[in-house]
């Protein structure tokens, strides 16, 4: 469905003069700085996938989405989506995609939500009965009813995002791009939106690309993640693989039944001791949790224990900080 090959986007950013006569000097001489917002990115996405596109602020996520949706012309590389080159056949291309930018709205500011949606029905030429079906389905799933007749300018951020999601899907697009759909929302609103995204992907088979820097979005929704930083794709694969490759560090918390001088055990490191409580760290690749527990219980008397899985957030932070994926 999406083929991206050696994609680049470079921006020339003007350096502004400072100080005396800055305006005139800006007009006469221009200095540029090159920003490589997207730098040699390749990937393929199949129909029906739900892919998380992850990266810190300024990584190049939005720029990638803007090229995929035809808003920006790539500086280099190839890009085929739905059999079309997005920026070349704009009108036909955008008729079959849905796009939501978390910080903007596609709705008309002064119109009640329902009127914006009806206007979009005409914009996308959605048949009346299909429109009605979709509208009632989304109204239920997103609980739009309480504010369907409220002008968009008076909606809360969460309400606006729900209305925007509905607006992006009324014309049954095969492909949905979501750029930071949960940004700025509270936990409850985030959860509701995640459920909706999952529903759209599973029940309607819509292919979805979701950019975010909220790792919980990815953990709850995506099997496949792509990680981008400084314009370069650092990882593309299953979330589980990411875990296995980079988070060797599961933790086992053990409450000993007696005081021991030496609590060491093969395959794990002691990273903390607090009275009779010991924290071991071990990696998935060297030993399983059950194996480790049996080794410990052969040597020591145990009162209680717990396994702590590292969260993906810590994993990815490590990837960024230690530059584990850079070549």
């Amino acid at each position: 469905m999406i083929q991206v090959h050696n994609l680049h986007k470079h921006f020339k950013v003007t350096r502004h003069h400072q100080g005396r006569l800055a305006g005139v000097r800006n007009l006469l001489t221009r200095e540029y700085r090159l920003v490589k917002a997207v730098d040699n990115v390749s990937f393929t996405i199949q129909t029906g996938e739900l892919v998380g596109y992850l990266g810190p602020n300024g990584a190049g996520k939005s720029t990638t989405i803007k090229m995929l949706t035809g808003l920006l012309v790539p500086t280099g590389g190839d890009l085929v989506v739905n059999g079309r080159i997005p920026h070349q056949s704009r009108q036909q291309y955008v008729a079959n995609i849905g796009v939501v930018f978390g910080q903007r709205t596609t709705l008309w500011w002064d119109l009640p939500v329902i009127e914006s949606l009806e206007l979009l029905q005409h914009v996308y030429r959605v048949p009346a009965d299909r429109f009605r079906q979709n509208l009632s389905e989304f109204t239920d799933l997103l609980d739009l009813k309480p504010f369907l007749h409220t002008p968009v300018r008076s909606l809360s951020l969460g309400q606006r995002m729900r209305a925007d999601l509905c607006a992006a899907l009324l014309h049954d697009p095969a492909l949905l791009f979501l750029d930071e759909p949960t940004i700025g929302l509270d936990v409850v609103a985030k959860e509701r939106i995640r459920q909706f995204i999952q529903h759209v992907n599973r029940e309607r088979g819509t292919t979805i690309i979701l950019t975010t820097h909220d790792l919980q979005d990815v953990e709850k929704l995506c099997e496949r993640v792509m990680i981008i930083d400084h314009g370069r794709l650092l990882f593309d694969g299953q979330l589980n693989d990411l875990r296995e490759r980079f988070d060797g560090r599961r933790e086992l918390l053990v409450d000993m039944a007696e005081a021991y001088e030496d609590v060491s055990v093969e395959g794990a490191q002691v990273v903390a001791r607090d009275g009779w409580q010991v924290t071991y760290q071990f990696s998935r690749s060297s030993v399983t949790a059950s194996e480790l527990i049996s080794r410990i219980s052969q040597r020591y008397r145990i009162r209680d224990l717990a396994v702590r899985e590292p969260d993906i957030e810590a994993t990815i932070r490590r990837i960024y900080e230690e530059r584990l994926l850079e070549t």
Partner: protein
Amino acid sequence: MRHTLTLYRRLLGVQIRSQLQYRVAFFMDLLATGLTVCLEFASLALVLQRFQHIRGWTMGEVAFLYGMVEIAFGIMDLVFSGFDPGRFGQEVRRGTFDQILLRPVNITVQVLTLDFALRRLAKITVGIGIFIVGLQGTMITWTPAKLLYLPFVLGSMVCFFGGLFVVGATITFWTVESIEVMNILTYGGSFTISYPMSIYPDWLRRFFTYIVPAIFLNYYPALYILDKPDPFNFPPIAPFLAPLVGLITLALSLAFWRFGITHYQSTGT
């Protein structure tokens, strides 16, 4: 094509309904615009009464000229509201243009309907008033040809100034700093041609003849309708060049607009 026209009407409807929601602001705007235009013309009338005429133009004749520009510019400002460079530049920075590109509808139609500045109706109304006053102060011998040509003259000015708006809007894709230059041309141009071109120094008149040929939009058609002699001895075709100037300007500016769109660099998050 029919779909596009229907959408144009619907999107305009949205603009009008939105403005009428802010009723008080709307009427205040209307009033302010109307008053401004009246004041501008009143000060002109005062000057003219002192002198009776300027360079062979009577008060009524100047009102005729002035009214035509006022009406045409008002209509242009209404129809091309969305292209108003200052406003359009803001919308670009706000990301509105991204949303436009994401909809399967003609881009120009969507920009035209970004705004529909109804308060310009005041400008148009006052313009019509001034024009009528002008008509009464002149002894025009109307012929069918003159009557028929008049709407074309107005239409040409709408196209011409609309074209300047489009050029200004396009420039905002690259920079919002140089926008003032364009505004000087648009507003300065319309101000200049509100008065007989013969009152200006040679260099200014030449600028508005050979570089920006606005002289053919209003001045020459007025000479023809008022049966006044041409002080600059142009060929007799000169009064009928207005539609050509208007259409060519609009066509060139739309070509520039399309070029600008391909160079658009979406900004912001």
